[in-house]
């Protein structure tokens, strides 16, 4: 499987298929377009590109077409595609690799709410070592999530004792932050490729 540390000799931007293969250890060209992944995809009804379309575009190095694709961001990682792929292509892992490429790079366009949610989620984990749900809700709304959604439901969640009012900080917070920083450094290195 591709290492994050291997250096690469190149004279231009690395082609998408090669980059994805380096990240996943799987050759996207192994997909023979049977469409079984898309047949079982719960989000295929909402996306313009279905999993087998994504696999084909990766194999054809079409970074441009994928940058506009909502399918990458709407993928729920239910792993149905990966479970059912008859040729071991792992579309779910491929989606993750693409999101990683587009999240760190300047080419992708993640929907604002979804991007805000993930950023807020990870910020909570970096800050406390665990998810502080109330903090997530606040930070998500301030970071670009829909401001008034769930305003009326939040009191009912509180009433059931389901939302903590203060975060719990883990003792090994230094280690958790070291993990985040090391991964951010790898991402920065990757972006420079």
């Amino acid at each position: 499987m591709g290492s994050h540390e291997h250096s690469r000799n190149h004279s231009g931007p690395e082609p998408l298929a090669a980059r994805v293969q380096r990240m996943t250890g799987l050759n996207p060209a192994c997909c023979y377009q049977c469409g079984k992944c898309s047949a079982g995809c719960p989000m295929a009804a909402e996306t313009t590109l279905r999993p087998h379309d994504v696999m084909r575009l990766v194999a054809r190095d079409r970074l441009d077409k994928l940058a506009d694709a909502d399918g990458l961001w709407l993928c729920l990682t239910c792993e149905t595609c990966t479970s059912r792929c008859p040729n071991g292509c792992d579309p779910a892992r491929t989606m993750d690799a693409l999101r990683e490429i587009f999240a760190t790079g300047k080419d992708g366009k993640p929907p604002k709410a979804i991007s805000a949610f993930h950023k807020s989620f990870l910020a909570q984990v970096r800050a406390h070592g665990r998810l502080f749900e109330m903090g997530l809700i606040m930070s998500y709304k301030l970071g670009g999530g829909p401001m008034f959604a769930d305003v009326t439901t939040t009191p009912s969640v509180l009433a059931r004792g389901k939302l903590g009012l203060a975060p719990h900080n883990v003792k090994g917070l230094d280690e958790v932050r070291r993990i985040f920083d090391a991964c951010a450094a790898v991402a920065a290195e990757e972006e420079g490729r």
Partner: protein
Amino acid sequence: MTKIGYFPGCSLHGLSREYEESLKAIVAGLDTELVEVDDWSCCGASSAHGTSHLLAVTLPARNLAIAESQGLPEVLAPCAACYARLASARHEIEGDTDLAGHVNRILVRDFKNTVKVRSILEVLKGQVATIKAKATNPLKDLKVACYYGCLLVRPVEVTGGYDDPEDPSSMEDICKAAGAVPVKWNRRLDCCGGGMSMSRTGSVVRLSAAILKDAKAAGADAVVVACPMCHSNLDFRQKAMQQRGAWEGDMPVLFLTQVVGLSMGIDPKTLGMGRHFVSTNSVMARTAGTGSGAGTGTNKATAVAGEVG
């Protein structure tokens, strides 16, 4: 007494605390002791793996490394998402020495990746005989739709194949041991919308309403889940489904551990039955042996159930 490592995960200490309450209530009766992973941290859930693969492996690896240093051979992760992230990390590190080296250098730990990750289905499946023997209050009038969702049984490379990824049976077997009657239905492996409850509520409403409708059509009195996200989407989001015209009615959604707990005659309050958004009173009425907040006495509880029914 069997000891098993325990990774609660963030949801079991927050939005799904009734899952932990009911789990802790039943393990004593199953002769099992949960040993919590010391100072555990978040597995990264759905946000880490779409952001950085290395982060998605290293965050769970910290917890596996701590469990290993506690001498725990296996860890139960009741949350299906935590289970998937922990088991995936274990699987990926096992198959990639470069990645294993990289993770160890970040953690600064001598981590050998020896800890097995177990789902709640895997653990309770091994206890079916005990559950049956302890079911003093079998739920014989309760028809349940066992909902697996995505991450409990697939992909099989990650789960190790403790159950079939397309036609699983462990949850039905556990519910049967508790005396409940599993219905046959179609959408038990469909996705509920996972972590998009807040960021794309419309998708969650569409997917989760289809699941509830199918369960209802199959005659289920309740849906049984083993995942905090599935629970939140199917229980908490029923109101949004109703408001958007996607679903009519009220379908109680129970954690599998609550089903087992009710069959053992454990007080519903202890099992966190009152924390649900959709009332579980109809379940109490049908389970006959237990009344809401009525303690564990079978006769008294039957009387309460009789009043409701």
